C-alpha cells in the first residue's frame, strides 16, 4: 500500500477498560495539518491519542502510523517512535532538573546521541516555546504554564512528522495560546498534528479540522467552519430562556443566548459559534458541560 507521508489511519479501532468502552469502532484518517479532538471528559480523547502515540495498543481494529504497524516488529515500532513527538496529558517533571536538562534528557531518549547537535536542537525547541531565558531554571521553580511549555518543547524535538499533544493549552494564558497557535500553524505545513482540548476557543483558533468525540465514538469530523454551519438557525438571542432549549445562558447585555429547541417569542436569530455547534452536537450530554456563564 502506498501511504503518503505523515498519515495516521485508524480502522474500526476499539479500546475497553474492563467493561467500559473507551473507544468503539473508530475510523479516522489524519494527514498533515492541525486537527483538534474535542469532547467532554471521558469521551475517549486521551485513549485515542495514547494509541496514536504508541503508548497503548488498541484491542480491536487496525492502526497504521506513517505506513507502519506501531506494534509490529521492533524495527517498525522504533521507526514510528523516531518520527513521533508526544505530550502526554499528565507529565511529571522531575523538579530538580532544569528545563534544559529535562529536554536534553528526552532528546537522548530520542537518540540524539551527538552532543553538539543535541544541544543545538534543545536550544531550538526551547526558543520555539519562548523559554530560552528560563532554560537554566529548575523545573520545580517554573510556573504551570512554563512547565507545560517545557513539555511542549520536548514534543517538538527533531521536527517529528507526527505530533500528538494531549491538552497542550492547559495552564496557558491567552498570549501563550496565541504563541502556541503560531508555532502549530507552521508545524502543520509539514507534520500531522493531533491535539485534544475541551475548550472550543482552542479549536477555533488552532485547528483546521475538528473531530468531536463523545462516549468513545466520533460525532463529527470535518472543517471547523462546517461544524459551525451545523448550528445555523438553531441559536437565538431572546428576552427569556427557551422552554425546551438544549442550553441557554444570560449574556452581558441581559438577553439570553438560547441554543437548540424552539425559539422563544421575540427571539432574534444569532450567529452560531463553534461552541454552540459543539453543544448541539453533543445533545443531552451538553447540559452537564455548560455551566451558566
Amino acid at each position, binding site marked *: 500500500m502506498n501511504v503518503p507521508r505523515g498519515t495516521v489511519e485508524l480502522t474500526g479501532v476499539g479500546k475497553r477498560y474492563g467493561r467500559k468502552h473507551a473507544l468503539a469502532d473508530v475510523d479516522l484518517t489524519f494527514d498533515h495539518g492541525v486537527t483538534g479532538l474535542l469532547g467532554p471528559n471521558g469521551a475517549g480523547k486521551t485513549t485515542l491519542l495514547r494509541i496514536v502515540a504508541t503508548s497503548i495498543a488498541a484491542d480491536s481494529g487496525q492502526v497504521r502510523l506513517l505506513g507502519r504497524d506501531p506494534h509490529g516488529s521492533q524495527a517498525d515500532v522504533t521507526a514510528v517512535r523516531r518520527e513521533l513527538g508526544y505530550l502526554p496529558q499528565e507529565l511529571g517533571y522531575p523538579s530538580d532538573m*532544569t528545563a534544559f536538562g529535562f529536554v536534553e534528557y528526552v532528546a537522548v531518549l530520542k537518540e540524539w546521541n551527538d552532543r553538539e547537535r543535541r544541544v543545538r536542537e534543545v536550544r531550538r525547541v526551547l526558543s520555539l516555546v519562548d523559554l*530560552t*531565558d*528560563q*532554560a*537554566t*531554571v*529548575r523545573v520545580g*521553580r517554573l510556573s504551570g504554564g512554563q512547565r507545560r511549555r517545557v513539555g511542549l518543547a520536548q514534543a517538538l524535538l527533531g521536527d517529528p512528522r507526527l505530533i500528538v499533544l494531549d491538552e497542550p493549552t492547559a495552564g496557558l494564558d491567552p498570549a501563550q495560546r496565541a504563541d502556541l497557535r503560531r508555532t502549530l500553524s507552521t508545524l502543520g505545513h509539514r507534520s500531522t498534528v493531533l491535539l485534544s482540548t475541551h475548550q472550543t476557543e482552542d479549536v477555533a483558533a488552532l485547528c483546521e479540522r475538528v473531530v468531536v468525540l463523545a462516549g468513545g465514538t466520533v460525532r463529527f469530523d470535518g472543517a471547523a467552519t462546517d461544524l459551525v454551519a451545523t448550528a445555523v438557525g438553531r441559536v437565538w438571542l431572546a428576552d427569556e430562556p427557551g422552554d425546551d432549549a438544549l442550553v441557554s445562558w444570560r449574556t452581558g447585555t441581559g438577553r439570553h443566548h438560547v441554543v437548540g429547541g424552539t425559539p422563544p417569542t421575540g427571539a432574534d436569530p444569532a450567529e452560531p459559534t463553534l461552541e454552540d455547534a459543539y453543544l448541539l452536537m453533543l445533545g443531552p450530554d451538553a447540559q452537564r458541560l455548560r455551566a451558566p456563564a
Partner: protein
Amino acid sequence: MSTTPFVTDAALVAAVADKDAGALRELYERHGAWLHARLIRRCNDPEVVVEVVQDTFVALWKDARRFRHDGEVGAWLWGIAFRRMVSRLRSRKDVVLIPDWDVPAAPQQVLPSAEDLVLLGVEYGDLAAALRRLSPEFRSVVQAVVLDGLTTKEAGRLLGVRENTVKTRLHRAKAQLRTALTEPQEGWR
C-alpha cells in the same frame, strides 16, 4: 530580559540568583567587554583571558547570592576576574603583564586630547606625575593593590615577593606620593 525599562545591575544579579539566563546574558553584555579589555592589558595570552572572563560569569551564575547589594557590580566582577587570572597564572609568570610605566608602548601612540587629559585628571589629579616618579617596584605594588584591588597577600603572589615586602613598599610608596602631592587624594587609604 530586555533593557527597557532599564534594569539595574543589582536587579540583574538578583535575577541571576534565580537562575535567569537572560539576566546573565544582559550582565555579560554590559560588563563582559570592558573586563575583557582590562584583562588583556594584564595578560598576553588571549585564550587565558577568554577563559577567565568565562570563569567569572560562571562564578557569578553560581554565587550571585553572595553579592552584597551595597557595592558596585562592576567592581565586584573585576575582583572575581582579576583574582581568577592571578591564581590561574601563578605558575605562568611569563604571561602576566605588569604595565610598563616608563615607556609609551607603541610607536603610533595616540595622545589623549588636552581636554581628555584634564577630565581624566579629575580621577587622579597630579597623581600621574607623582606616580611616574615612583621607582618600578613601588609602582607595581601601587598598581596591584590600589588600582587592581588585590590584597597585599595576593599582590605578593603576583609579584613574586613576600607579603611583608608588599606592605612595606606600599607604605613607602604612599608616603612618597603624599609628599609629592600637597594633600592625600580621595580614594587613598
